[in-house]
């Protein structure tokens, strides 16, 4: 049935406003990154984009940040997800305390966290490694509020107790139950939580900067001090990268719609 023109007008007005709110800053960044910044430049130039690969430390910082994001992903998959499942399945009394614990990084300002963990990272950089990859530890704590909420919602949406019991009666041990049955069942929740976590890790600046680690965001900030156009170009590229990553979530949901079964 065709909707009244007023409804359609109202809908498109809202969509236009939201679209402009999101896209205008991106366009402004693109506009700025293509402005001339050298004496030889005339009119529009893509030189800021072209010299991105030659920026000192940038490529290695990107690799390090992606590696860190990968480690955080692994921690989510092999530590946080099984723990959340275990708490839901076996320790329901601990659900509230666990949830509260997971929300703490959201309530504590990043600067407070970094002051608290600075001595620990000083020790790590002296005795273990100076690699920024060690930041995966603190990042996996920072992403908890987002990841846990996403996992918890997915776990609440299905009757994991019955699924687990059914698997056990068929001969599955605990690890098979968790990794073979429950995790594929809540795949959408895990994917959502993981992508949000990756976006957060790639965008984090405060902690890595204060701890003197050269991560992606820190290097962008450094470039910005010497060449604003390049810094904005890199920032825009990173935003687009994360945007593509986040846009992949609904696609993933559609593909795995088969998992979203009401088990009541």
């Amino acid at each position, binding site marked *: 049935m065709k909707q009244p023109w007023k409804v359609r007008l109202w809908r498109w007005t809202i969509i236009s406003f939201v679209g402009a709110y999101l896209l205008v800053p991106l366009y402004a960044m693109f506009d700025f990154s293509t402005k001339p910044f050298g004496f030889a430049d005339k009119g529009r130039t893509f030189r800021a984009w072209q010299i991105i690969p030659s920026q000192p430390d940038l490529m290695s910082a990107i690799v390090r940040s992606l590696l860190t994001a990968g480690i955080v992903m692994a921690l989510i998959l092999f530590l946080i997800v099984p723990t959340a499942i275990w708490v839901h399945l076996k320790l329901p009394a601990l659900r509230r305390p666990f949830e509260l614990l997971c929300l703490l990084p959201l309530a504590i300002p990043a600067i407070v966290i970094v002051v608290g963990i600075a001595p620990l990272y000083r020790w790590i950089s002296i005795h273990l490694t100076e690699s920024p990859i060690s930041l995966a530890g603190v990042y996996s704590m920072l992403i908890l509020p987002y990841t846990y909420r996403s996992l918890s919602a997915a776990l609440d949406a299905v009757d994991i107790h019955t699924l687990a019991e*059914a698997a*056990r*009666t068929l001969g599955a041990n605990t690890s098979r139950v968790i990794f073979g049955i429950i995790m594929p069942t809540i795949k959408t929740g895990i994917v959502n939580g993981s992508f949000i976590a990756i976006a957060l890790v790639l965008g984090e600046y405060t902690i890595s900067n204060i701890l003197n680690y050269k991560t992606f965001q820190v290097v962008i900030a450094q470039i910005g001090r010497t060449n604003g156009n390049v810094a904005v170009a890199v920032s825009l590229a990173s935003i687009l990268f994360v945007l593509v990553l986040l846009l992949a979530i609904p696609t993933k949901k559609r593909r795995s719609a088969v998992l979203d079964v009401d088990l009541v």
Partner: protein
Amino acid sequence: MSSSTYVQLVDLAKHFGKVRALDGLSLDIAQGELVALLGPSGCGKTTALRALAGLQELDRGQLIVDGKDVTFQNANKRGMGMVFQAYSLFPHMTARENVEYGLKLKAHKAAGDKRKARSAELLELVGLSTHANHYPHQLSGGQQQRVALARALAISPKVLLLDEPLSALDAKVRTQLREEIRRIQMELGTTTLFVTHDQEEALSIADRVGVMRNGQLEQIATPSELYDRPKTSFVAEFVGLTNPIPGKVSGSSIEILGSVVKTLPGSVASGTGIALVRPESVDVVASKSGNATVAAASFLGASCRLNITMNDGTKITAQLPSSDASGIGAGATVSVSLLDMPVFVKAAG
């Protein structure tokens, strides 16, 4: 333990806080037998089933299956096939993959071809061979429970455990599926324990029905014996309908509604008692000089149910074949008597 006993539940006890879910439950099941546990909510029937599956720890008791003590064996080692009340198919697997899952995990790991053949055979058995590649969300509730049954049977379970598998289904599908469960169970000869709160379900498919109350077995018997010869007032009142009619007891008989009727063992032996009379034991004949009036008549198809008020004010329900009830409607004067069937008599007050 008789020679044919295959499963033994011995003196099972389980407390949840102050609630006694199981209180010394003992039960023997013969090989190939289908036993139904029937009882009101909270009577402990599901706890007993879960204990046998290994999903519920016990405070006390022993579980013996095929001569082996499995009391402390893990659920994944017991080889019990279970169908749950809630839909329990793995949502990321097709019907075929669900059925094959247990076979993949078996110690001797059935080869791929054998697994496929077995899952195809079982899906055929439950009438879903054309749905093998469907995901659970593409199946109806009844189809999902059929696949769950096929999955439970795929591992050739020592005991098939059915935990109210039909309660989430609509009445028609429920009737169909319970008949199919019985057919498949008899075809495969699988020893089965079936838990339900629906007495019609239990009485229609079980070899024996155990009625549970407060964690104990009140009576276990064949459906007809349970219905016709209840051993306790709880069983008499829980299974089927009864008319509580007071009367004078002397020895093994009671005088009610002007008739003397034999009492069942376990009944009150003297003084005043309340006879629990089945509606089918009440004979009703249209008579202008009758001793009762029909308050309401309900047509049930093959039979007719009459709510009758006796001249002394006693209200009783009678159920008679529709052919015998023709012409008896609300307001009719009728003559009520009792058929010569023994009744259970409980103490008055």
